[in-house]
């Protein structure tokens, strides 16, 4: 049982890291970025490419994260502009269409150029014992990355002037403009941050299982579930939801079977919408 829960925590931290990038963009821009998972795939491709020319792993990882952030920034500054000119439901709908189009474009392109592309990061060394359970080093490293990112994000949004400014724009955009914050600049920063997080997801998740070029939509789906359960725009909520879902996922897989887990996760999201539409920590 301990082993199952520990596996759940490892997976949950990964879910949290995955969800937080999507939830932030939704919280600030009112856009559900359906191309989110593709940024992770893009990051993974760049990591493999840079590693293959002989660069050390940390450098390759940094390049992947930077590439995903750059791709997200480009999207924000180009195709998203007409979306931001809309408001409310129109913005959400147009945002879904545009990002879906971008997702198809990236996925199609990668599938054409690099159909078998995949990122596997092998962390060598003996398993580490945690509560008497031997945990693979890849799992431990992935969890450490997710946890450290979570702490850094909470610190950024809770304690820095700029982070608080971005959070204020999530709560009241007009209010934020009146205190001197440019919402469009804040959006670009959050979009770039979201891309970087997707790149980080690619690196950390490929330490336990390979990330293939066809996985973009799966990642987006899981991120969406985490976002709904955690509450829109909440960093802590995303990690809390991730942990909860990760544990539910591994426990179900262990006691019922792998086939049931995606249904259970979607069910958890549905239940959240019915019982607590704001999510665990949403506004």
């Amino acid at each position, binding site marked *: 049982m301990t082993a199952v829960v520990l596996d759940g925590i490892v997976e949950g931290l990964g879910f949290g890291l995955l969800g937080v990038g999507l939830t932030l963009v939704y919280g600030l821009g009112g856009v559900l970025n359906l191309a989110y998972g593709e940024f992770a795939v893009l990051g993974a491709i760049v990591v493999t490419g840079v590693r293959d020319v002989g660069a050390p792993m940390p450098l390759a990882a940094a390049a992947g994260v930077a590439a995903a952030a750059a791709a997200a920034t480009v999207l924000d500054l180009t195709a998203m502009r007409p979306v931001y000119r809309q408001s409310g439901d129109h913005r959400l709908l147009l945002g879904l269409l545009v990002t879906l189009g971008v997702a198809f474009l990236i996925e199609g392109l990668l599938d054409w150029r690099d159909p078998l592309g995949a990122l596997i990061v092998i962390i060598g060394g003996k398993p580490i014992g945690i509560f008497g359970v031997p945990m693979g080093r890849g799992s431990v490293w992935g969890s450490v990355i997710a946890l450290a990112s979570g702490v850094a994000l909470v610190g950024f949004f809770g304690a820095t*002037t700029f982070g*608080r400014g971005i959070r204020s724009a999530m709560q009241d955009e007009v209010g934020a*403009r*009146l205190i001197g*914050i440019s919402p469009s600049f804040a959006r670009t920063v959050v979009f770039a941050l979201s891309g970087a997080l997707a790149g980080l997801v690619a690196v950390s998740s490929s330490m336990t299982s390979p990330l293939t070029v066809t996985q973009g939509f799966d990642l987006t789906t899981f991120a969406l579930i985490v976002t709904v359960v955690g509450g829109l725009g909440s960093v802590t909520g995303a990690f809390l939801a991730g942990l909860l879902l990760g544990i539910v996922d591994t426990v179900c897989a262990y006691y019922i079977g792998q086939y049931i887990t995606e249904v259970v996760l979607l069910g958890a999201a549905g239940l959240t919408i019915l019982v607590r539409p704001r999510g665990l920590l949403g*506004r």
Partner: protein
Amino acid sequence: MRGVAAGYLGEKVVEGIDLEVRAGEAVAIIGSNGAGKTTLFRAIAGLLPCAAGRVIFDEIDLTRLRAHRVAHAGVAYVPAERHLFPAMTVKTNLVLGAYPHRPHPETLELVFKLFPRLKERMRQRAGTLSGGEQQMLAVSRALMARPKLLMLDEPTSGLAPKIAKAAFGALERLKATGVTLLIAEQQVPLALSVADRGYVLENGRIRLEGTAKELAHNPEVRRAYLGVA
């Protein structure tokens, strides 16, 4: 500002507005509901584009600037709907008022002197405050930026008459500290009690202007806004 016009979807709501506020002055824009006071304020604050005319502030041309740039130029606008950050504490709202700088201790002291209530409520979320307290917080958040001009749109909207009077009492004390004020108000007697000068806005145009005293004694104003037959 000279010849300013603004409106929504090509429809001009205010037009041909000439208006002047001198440093240290308190100026009131009075007019009934729908006269265009809010539209005018939104245009000055950069929340709405000016369709014509110019807004010059302290030798800076604000006409084409967006709201956050207008804020950087030293103009603070407190809308009637306040636009606080509801899930954040009173303290964080105040700190953010000084964005991107650190809050100035003297300004914080001034705020607490004007509104001692806020000091007791520092850890409470802004969304849970009463209407009067939210108005105090909205004005205070604007003050934290140490603006050269403070624009208040209907500071008494949604407040009980007694609280509205108290709010204007606080504005009187605020004015004594030397802040330049531009106030839009339907409650004309209150507005004219703090203002040095005033403009009467009717159907999007300036109908009358003068010192507060002149306006208070003007027969038209008395008939239309002061309930004198």
